[in-house]
């Protein structure tokens, strides 16, 4: 049995210890917000926060998340009450097809939370592990800059 904290709640995983964290989240904990795009650690669609750091959940066996804190997109806002970051994405066109969006938001939120610099270059660097094929990134960067400035 593997114990971990997911979105603030204590969870127990009883399946095979080498199950990937992304599968434990999506299948065992029914948290399908985290998406799989490549299985190679390239696209970042599977990004979750592990003890506050963005990581690719498609590359982590759940046994390595034992005793640690995982945060997924489900911990951020709700359709009725979006977080500031999500509202920024909605206002600035940061999401189109939406498949990269949960991962993008998790990485962006970690950057803002750790007081990362909110200039264009720093945000692009922070998000460089999240691929988007729809937006061309400019509106995503605008969304994050807006939310980062609102925080201060």
């Amino acid at each position: 049995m593997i114990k971990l904290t997911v979105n603030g709640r204590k969870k127990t995983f009883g399946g095979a210890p080498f199950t990937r964290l992304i599968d434990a989240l999506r299948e065992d904990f029914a948290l399908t917000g985290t998406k799989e795009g490549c299985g190679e650690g390239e696209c970042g669609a599977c990004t979750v926060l592990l003890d506050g750091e963005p990581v690719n959940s498609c590359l982590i066996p759940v046994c390595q998340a034992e005793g640690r804190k995982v945060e997924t997109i489900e911990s951020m806002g709700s359709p009725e009450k979006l977080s500031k970051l999500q509202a920024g994405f909605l206002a600035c066109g940061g999401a189109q097809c939406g498949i990269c969006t949960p991962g993008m938001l998790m990485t962006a939120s970690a950057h803002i939370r750790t007081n990362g610099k909110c200039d264009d270059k720093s945000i692009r660097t922070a998000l460089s592990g999240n691929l988007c094929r729809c937006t061309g990134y400019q509106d995503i960067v605008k969304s994050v800059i807006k939310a980062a400035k609102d925080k201060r």
Partner: protein
Amino acid sequence: MRGDAKSMTVLSPRSGAEALKTYAKLPTALPIAGGTDLMVGWNLGQLNGRAVLDLSRVREWKKISVVSDGVDLGSLVTHTAIQAHPVLRKRFPLLVAACATVGAAQIQNRGTIGGNVANASPAGDTFPALAVYEAVVRVNGPGGRRAIPFSEVFAGVKKTTLKPGELIEAIFLPFPDKTPTRGVFRKVGTRAAQAISKTMFAGLIWTAKNGELEDVRLAFGSLAPTVKRLYAAEAFLKGRRVNDVSIAAAAELLTNDVSPIDDIRSTREYRLVVSRNLLIAFLKGEVK
């Protein structure tokens, strides 16, 4: 996704000693640190049915210790942790620069220095820097502890000289006797981020006040099955005046030590011409 979690045997040692003991009993187990390389193969279904040695609980290998003659990096230190450490930033900036080019944030948060070395990719991002800093790879195994000079740790593509049952405990970076006059790390990748390198350069140079070159260390990655020090060029330059003539001659010696190829990412021709350009620019002091 073709990995079969149920088919895997997971061994989870809680200390370095336990890890070594377990590994000695089952040397066919696959050690996994951050997993950023191993899991890609696992997702393709290439590792089903294997035993894995999960090192993530070996706390003592996660430490960065500054000692009198250098810095000891535990093998499980991540690329992110390396970039954050003030002594590493000051004394080993080329390694810090290299770690910043590994994948992107998500990979840097998980990938480890020991994993990078053990994986022994011809394109290992930290290797040119480790080569010019003359790192020492501290391993432990059935035969006890030993220290492998970085120049001797790779045997070929994805092959180290570690013996069966040996694990990397730490990578030691000795402080150079004299602070280098100049140092450069440059990775030429397939794109601006999350890039595999086509060629990769690290260089340290010590010049005397009279313009003579006291010492130089030059290394290239991705140009051969393993990272290469340019011993021929280094030997030629030592003690010479650094000028256009000596630089051009040193550049000619590049091909003595490297053997780039055509592959899906780039061409032999491109790798050679760019590597020459970087080497010359570095020796001229024109690249930061």
